[in-house]
């Protein structure tokens, strides 16, 4: 397989910010996101890309596969249930902003509990703004599957949102 052409490299450079946000949503932490992003870029450079490939979609696919591999090898998801249990000793002093921050943390934790396929679909569409067709192309599933995965993911997150720590 050919290595990356200059236009493909430029496209990926322009997309790095979005890819990193995608990594952040998948991994749940900034440091893990940067590691996942680097792993993605290294894989792309190592394995190359067909000359006629859509560089951006290709990169999201590689990122998705890298994340799933990482989940499998490190069992990352097992770390998240601990994050869901709210520690009542960590009450912030500025209650309002801290409450908002806690809600986001709880949301991140809830995202981490979603099945990977739901989280991928939700992140691509709700965070990255991809269309259902684009997400279906990246994840290599039918559009209808994307629609139902996203709805199930949202339903699950709303259930978590009704838990006390989210208020």
């Amino acid at each position, binding site marked *: 397989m050919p*290595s990356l052409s200059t236009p493909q490299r430029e496209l990926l450079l322009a997309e790095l910010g979005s890819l990193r946000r995608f990594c952040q*949503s998948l991994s749940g932490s900034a440091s893990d996101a940067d590691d996942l*992003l680097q792993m993605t870029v290294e894989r792309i*450079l190592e394995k190359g890309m067909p000359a006629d490939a859509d560089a951006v979609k290709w990169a999201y696919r590689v990122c998705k596969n890298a994340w799933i591999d990482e989940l499998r090898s490190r069992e990352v998801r097992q770390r998240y249930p601990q994050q869901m249990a709210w520690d009542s000793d960590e009450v912030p002093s500025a209650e309002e902003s801290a409450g908002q921050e806690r809600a986001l943390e709880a949301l991140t934790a809830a995202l981490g509990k979603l099945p990977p396929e739901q989280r991928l679909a939700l992140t691509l569409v709700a965070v990255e703004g991809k269309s259902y067709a684009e997400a279906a192309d990246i994840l290599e599933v039918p559009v209808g599957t994307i629609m139902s995965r996203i709805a199930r993911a*949202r339903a699950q997150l*709303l259930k978590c949102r009704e838990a006390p720590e989210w208020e």
Partner: protein
Amino acid sequence: MGIDVEETMTDRDFELLSAYIDGELEPEVAATLTSRLAREPALRARLAELETLQSQLREAAGANDTTPLPARIRELLQPQPTAIRPLLHRLTLFPGNLRQGLAIAASLTAVAALLLAPRWQAGHDIAGQDVLLAAALETLPSRASGWDTLEDGRRLRAVLSFPNHAGSWCREYVLTGAGSSVRGVACRDGGNWTTRIAVPHNLLPGRDEEAYRPASAGDSGSIASFIDQNAAGDVLGAKKEAGLITRSWQ
């Protein structure tokens, strides 16, 4: 307080609401849902919750956006120059190894000395070190045909890569320019590529320009012998070689 989805709406309704905020409903379906939203408070409440969730998702994801991208990741994707520039900084980083490399260079065969002819001096730096060739061997993959053009106009075809008994990586190459051509093997020691053997290589006009000839053919017997004596393992496959190039042969 949340609303129990199962009591107030079907899963299908929820899926419609979800697709509605993503702008993915067909116009007529969206119109029907809009009518229902006007008369069904439970549906409206659920939509509001979904919209709040949506903004929180984006907020959570964007929390890291203000942090600059790590330079190491950006650098990985910098477009490669079409003309190979010398990596002079690598040479200056390893002055001791450079001296060692020069000592090795001094022991090259008389044939190799021909390679350092003045007509190619532009591509050479410190005492005959071919920095353009070194930079190209550091960064370019092997190819069976075709050429990469160095900054001084010479053309290079990296032919193959292999490990030697000293634990270094070596590369066979063909270098052509100013009417003559050489076939050689350079090895990477201390970050520098130093030619260990090089012999004149006769190009066959119209044929050899694009064809790959293995080192055992014709005038390349001494190169083949060198590789046989020094190779400590198989020739690298394209994938492994690409990985080593990405990692600066580490």
